[in-house]
């Protein structure tokens, strides 16, 4: 099964964030979207990603958006920062998913849907800072790591799960002492993503103790949002519903507000 050596090798194999991306993110963080667009323009892969992402149905633009500065202008600072972190995630994503039945388009849709709904949540909570808004982008890192580490152990996990309902995060923690969220934090550190972001994402596992009140609230909403998304048919079919353990008690007190914010119509489903 997954060993500490495999984990160390995997983390080691992740390259630092490309300089252009780091610079673009820095310009966006400083609020200079013009310089950020100029910088992003130098990276054809990033440009293509931005165009493809922004023109996907979830963003709901009527006309196709081409120009990077136009894209950043439309997105605004907070969303632009999120989209850049999303791009970093796609660099981490595998070309071919081995554990989950995903393709990259489905994964992009998950990223986009998480971001959109996270925006609604932060609006409801009255949280305006950009780092908290960007925190959601790091959440899918745990899915990528899970696929990378368990992809070649699929049949072993199936045998284990045939006798005990264990999620991947628990299996990894028991085998190595490190959770998928610990590894996400390590990658965030490597990519110089602010620790405020990785702390919230780590807490979204629903298992962290000693959280500040603010972190606790954000972690609750993020955890429930994750399972709201992972309960959607496409992601259930992909096998994502079983990847971490849903901490139902951790989120029970925000459930009513959550369904209102998400406009989840219980009676019409």
């Amino acid at each position, binding site marked *: *099964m*997954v*060993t500490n050596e495999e984990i160390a090798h995997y983390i080691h194999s992740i390259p630092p964030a490309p300089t252009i991306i780091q610079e673009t993110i820095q310009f966006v963080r400083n609020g200079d979207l013009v310089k950020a667009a100029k910088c992003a323009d130098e990276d054809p892969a990033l440009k293509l990603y931005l165009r493809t992402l922004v023109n996907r149905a979830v963003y709901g633009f009527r006309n196709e958006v081409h120009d990077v500065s136009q894209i950043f202008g439309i997105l605004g600072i907070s969303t632009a920062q999120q989209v850049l972190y999303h791009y970093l995630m796609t660099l981490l994503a595998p070309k071919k998913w081995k554990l989950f039945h995903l393709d990259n388009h489905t994964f992009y849709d998950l990223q986009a849907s998480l971001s959109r709904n996270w925006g609604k949540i932060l609006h409801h909570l009255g949280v305006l800072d950009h780092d908290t808004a960007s925190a959601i982008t790091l959440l899918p890192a745990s899915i990528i790591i899970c696929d990378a580490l368990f992809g070649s152990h699929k049949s*072993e996990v*199936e*045998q*284990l*799960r*045939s*006798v*005990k*309902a*264990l999620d991947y995060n*628990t*299996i990894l923690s*028991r*085998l190595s002492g490190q959770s998928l969220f610990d590894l996400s934090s390590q990658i965030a550190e490597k990519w110089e993503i602010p620790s405020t972001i990785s702390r919230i994402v780590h807490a979204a596992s629903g298992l962290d103790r000693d959280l500040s009140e603010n972190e606790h609230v954000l972690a609750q909403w993020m955890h*429930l949002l994750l*399972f*709201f998304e*992972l*309960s*959607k*048919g*496409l992601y*259930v*079919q992909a096998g994502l*519903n*079983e990847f971490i*353990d*849903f901490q*139902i008690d951790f*989120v*029970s007190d925000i*459930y009513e507000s959550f*369904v209102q914010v998400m406009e*989840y119509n*219980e*009676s019409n*489903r």
Partner: protein
Amino acid sequence: MRATVKGRVAIFYPQGFLDGNNASSFLSIDDIRATEALNIDMLLVSLKKVIFFNKNGLDVFIKLLISIRNQKRISIGLCDYDSLKFKTINAFYGNNLNFSLFRTEKIAELFTPSNKSDSKTVLLYNDDLSQRSAMAIELFDYGHNPVIAQSKKEFDEKKQHPDLYYTIIEDTYLGLFGQKIATRVTGNVIIYTVANFLDAEITNTFNIAYHNNSLNVGFRLFIFDAYKVISMNVHALNFFTKLASSAAEYNATICFVGLTFEKTPQIFKNDLEDAGILFFDNMDDILKNKELLQELGGSVATASKQTRTLNKALVNELPRFIDATISTIAMMTNAKASKESMNIQTLEITDTTNQYASSIGFYGDVDGMIIIIFPKAIAKKACELLIGEATDDEETILDSLAEFVNIIGGRAKALLGEQKHRVDITLPRTYGDVVSLMEMAQNKKGVQVNLSFEGSHFIFFLTR
């Protein structure tokens, strides 16, 4: 999504939201086929991790459950919910509730046969008198000791002392139950409870897979508790005669207790006796008579008068069984076990103290039994992934050891499948000490492989 199987209960664990839009995504065609192929007595959907569900969502699972119940006559239902969810489910289905509801998995397990002979004392209450009685009868038939509260007030008082009970049964409902003959284990005896009229229907209600499992893992005495039987017809007579013939191949004994022949032709008794079935008036005539018990095979020490010998087919597959064991240990611990020695012999354990053991049988194209004997510390280490937290609770460790051996059995089955050998595996059995294992295995000749793992030794034994 695949169901997780514990003992003879399979459970689906969906998480998050369960509604009409997503529920069908939990069950692919492959998942449905895999569920249909399971050898189980109960199939459940756990709502423990479901924060929202509606009737449309539940109906998708219920439809599958009912279809499997119709094929296999197993019990089906929902489990792991709180009082609020219980009320919601009742509101959804009202009088059309034709499946069971178990507040916890622990409660559900009480209503299925197992290999364990421990009788559990449980507190039981239900507003509905017929439900209360049905549950009490089922629990009793499965070998448990239900303490029945006659009123809500009495229940609430008794509930104040939860430590007196294995579990407290409330918010539970038995729907279309009693489809299978209840089974319990007392010591090394399997007891089946039969009632009313015994006719051709017994071929459907008797759990033949469980019976064969029990024969394969070494049970040799089977008692039909027939106090509540009114009469039997010729179809039931034929069934029991055939059962006695197949038991004879294993040197096993079948007895009837409490059966009267007021409405059953006396000639049936003669036919059954000719087939080798014994008759007793009272259960205690057997269970309290140690000498008789031993003679009948209810004390496993004497069960192996006619030991089944190793055959070429089994020895040929030995490498696959060892592979399955070593690879399971590697999977569960990330440490390597290595082979030290291998001999054809009777089971020999040099150090009998502080050891746990577990066995699992298999039958089909090849048949036999795998026995694994671990020092307690190594057993704990091997099961760490399943147990999760440090524990010295013997029941938890033995339960995990059973799961561990079940994985070995599953891997062996898969490896044999690659060689086009089709086998089924039995329920695993665990032993808290080596003495009780030796009673079952001491005369059996097999292949003993001594293995080493993290500086300690453990034994793999393959026998028939």
